[in-house]
């Protein structure tokens, strides 16, 4: 499970990073979203991966660390709000500047 988990996080981060570095606002927004998903997964794994453990201290030694779950919840909420904001900002930039390049430049490739 650890390997699968690590690979998922890694691939998500790589995709997110690649898209964030693109020139158009839409891929950048998608990239940031992917990046925040990757971060949430990463945070979640930082308490150690536990299978079938309750999330609070209980009888026995096998329990999951509850703190990363709380952190992830906070990070999800903040990430969600930020994504909503950046989508609106990208749309306003598109309508005010007239194109969707992050630098506001006209496309000079084509």
């Amino acid at each position, binding site marked *: 499970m650890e390997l699968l988990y690590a690979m998922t996080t890694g691939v998500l981060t790589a995709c997110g990073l690649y898209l964030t570095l693109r020139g158009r606002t839409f891929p950048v927004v998608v990239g940031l979203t992917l990046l925040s998903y990757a971060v949430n997964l990463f945070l979640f794994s930082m308490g150690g991966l536990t299978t079938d453990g309750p999330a609070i201290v209980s009888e026995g030694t096998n329990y999951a660390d509850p703190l990363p779950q709380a952190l992830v919840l906070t990070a999800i909420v*903040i990430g969600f709000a930020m994504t909503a904001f950046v989508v609106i900002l990208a749309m306003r930039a598109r309508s005010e500047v007239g194109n969707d390049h992050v630098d506001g430049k006209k496309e000079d490739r084509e």
Partner: protein
Amino acid sequence: MMQHLIVFPVVLPLVAGILLLYQRQGLVRYKRAVSVAATVLLLLVAIGLLRQAASDQVTYYALGDWQAPFGIVLVLDRLSALMLLVTAVLAVGAVVFACAGDDEKGSNFHGLFQWQLLGINGAFLTGDLFNLFVFFEVLLLASYALLLHGGGKARIQASVHYVVLNLAGSSLFLIAVGILYGATGTLNMADMAIRVAELPAEREGLVTAGALMLLVVFGLKAAILPLYFWLPKAYASAPAPVAALFAIMTKVGIYAILRVYSLLFGDSAGGLEALEQPWVWWLSLATLAAAGVGVMAARDLRLLVAYLVLVSVGTLLAGIGMRSPQAVSALLYYLIHTTLVTGGLFLLAEMIGLQRGKAGTRLVKGRPMAQGAGLAMLFFIGAIAVAGVPPFSGAIGKALMLNAAEGTQRLWLWPLLLLTSLASLIALSRAGSTLFWRSHRGNISGTPLPRRQWFGVIWLLSAAPLLVALAGPVSSYTQATADQLANPQVLIRTLLPNAAGDAQ
């Protein structure tokens, strides 16, 4: 009552911000009154907290009475009290200035302004690494909206860069916090300091990675060399009161670096001691050099002031990079001066732009100003202070910094700092002579500036002479602050009375 005073700088702007959300438009006078009253009250609270912190005791407020390391604590020591006071003083100037009409150019200015203060104050007070992230997000969210206040092409363009960069930075912050939590098993900074001191050798790499990633995040906020490119455009296009308030934002990054690294990687950290020091030192010098070039190249007064903010960032970081109590004391003195004076200069640039009509703040020939004499006088004071020429506070701040450098550090810092000061001086005198002397002949027109704007600028720029008059008490306070920072055991023992005994 007194024991709850620590939580006031967070609760007060929060409540004021919620009150100010009532009705998006209208009720202008009522909103202004609430906002100014809340800010002035914040100033009084900050003064009270400073007096409390000056007794050399570290006090803390456990939210919900959950004790550290399990609950979130707000910690008040000399450093946080000082930062709170600087923020409050700056905010009073900015909010009064905004009441002259800038607040009506968009909606919800005052509510957002208060929330920005909430985020800044929270970041200065918190003793928990994840909570620091949350307050960073609060202040960033408010700053995104404030930066867009009033709209316009340039602002939206700058906002896109600013928001995207900071969102990427937030992701990095979370990764770094995750790594540090994974390696040490705690988020409370005092507790983490103990755990870092007892760290098993195989985890040192992990902690180093986390700590340096954190440095990237704080560097982005503070605008260190490879991460500063968002700053000039964002600050130059922000509405004037917002730009003035943003003068404290880079200092939030500086504060975070100072706090986290002096606490976690201080003397007791063993092999990890001062792991940020070479990075901060060399990058600060590079920032200084780049900012000096930027100051010379700026063709707009607001851009010029934005680059002056960068000069101050470089200078302050060099103080952290020297890593001695004397340097920290010097940098704190310089921090008070530079925050207030650059904030004042942003406001002043707006007033000059208003009086010059179409030429605005661009450094070209424009029409003569109706109130040119008063503005020129203020510009002169601000320019002298920020460039570091006697008799104002910049000179003392820079002299303290130069004096704090030791050995080979002098070889690097002295020429760079003095040359950037020279560059600022040249650029400012060029700007001043263009703005005030090289104007078109013609009749003076333009409406007189509102009194609130004059108040805002004079309030902030009067810091320059005041900091000279009060240089003795201020520098003895900063010296004591630096000593307190160099000795984090006091803070750790206050927060964790049981655990600190083991670390000794």
